[in-house]
């Protein structure tokens, strides 16, 4: 059974149980954060780097974490920012648009990274790569993580209305892609 966030924070507040608390936090969130990063950047090595960066930032800043926010929202926010920054850097490095970064990531889907899943699953991930980075993130948090709009809003600092609009458009684009013949 996983420990709840308030217990983790209480343990973290005490010097002697700080490492134990962080171990519990890692145990609770590492897979969720890895999969969030993996779906965003596709490549395993990139996702691995990102997940490590995220938890190092969590470790360094957990002392200053304000208890009025939810711990998972805060961790997801760090992970989301890391992923968006990574994609932005990749865009600058390759001198390509974020849309083209999506094309590159979509190409990765045909590599050995993507070993299972049928044709329709490939199409879903290829469709996700056509979305702008932040819209893709919103789609992920809603569709895969099944977070409520209010939770996504707390994570990304975007209004619920804008999130609904973005998700609605993402769903429309993905549906059209799934129904397309190529």
């Amino acid at each position, binding site marked *: 059974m996983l420990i709840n966030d308030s217990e983790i924070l209480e343990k973290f507040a005490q010097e002697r149980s700080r490492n134990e608390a962080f171990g519990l936090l890692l*145990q609770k969130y590492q897979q969720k954060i890895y999969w969030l990063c993996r779906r965003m950047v596709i490549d395993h090595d990139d996702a691995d780097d990102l997940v490590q960066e995220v938890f190092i930032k969590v470790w360094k800043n957990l002392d200053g974490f304000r208890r009025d926010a939810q711990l998972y929202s805060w961790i997801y926010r760090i992970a989301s920012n890391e992923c968006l920054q990574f994609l932005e850097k990749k865009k600058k490095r390759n001198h390509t648009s974020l849309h083209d970064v999506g094309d590159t990531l979509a190409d990765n889907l045909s590599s050995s990274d993507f070993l299972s899943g049928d044709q329709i*699953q490939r199409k879903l991930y290829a469709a996700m790569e056509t979305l702008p980075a*932040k819209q893709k993130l919103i789609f992920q948090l809603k569709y895969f993580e099944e977070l409520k709009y209010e939770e996504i809003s707390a994570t990304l600092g975007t209004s619920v*209305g804008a999130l609904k609009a973005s998700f609605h458009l993402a769903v429309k684009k993905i549906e059209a892609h799934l129904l397309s013949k190529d």
Partner: protein
Amino acid sequence: MRTNMHSKQWQEQAPTLAKMEKINPFEVPAGYFETLSDRISQRMAAENTKPAKIRIIPMWTRYAAAACLTCVLGITLYLNLKQNASATVNWNEIPDQEIVAYLEMNLEDADAALIINNLDEQSAPGLASGVNEQEIEMYINQSL
């Protein structure tokens, strides 16, 4: 309740997506998650044990530089304030057209919720006329 309604709404609009099983098609190297915590801990330890940077410039020179900078900024600010103190704005001299143009350029807090709620032309005829869906999407992506 509203969230459920929205959820049903997208499922109706995207039946193919709604019917799809949420399978994770990615694979990770064997034992990856079992060792991830350890690798993160090792990296944290490595970062914590990094030697502190050696200070080549003595501390007093930094304080001296900061004091000089404060003086320069203070004098510049004082002179600037003195120069502008006599300048007054006569609102009557500004043409109405310029005020309208300024407001049009700076009013940008339209709520995206309003847009999505009115995307359906039938429920709000005329509201979105002259604005195509691509333009609406561009606006939403920019406002995220």
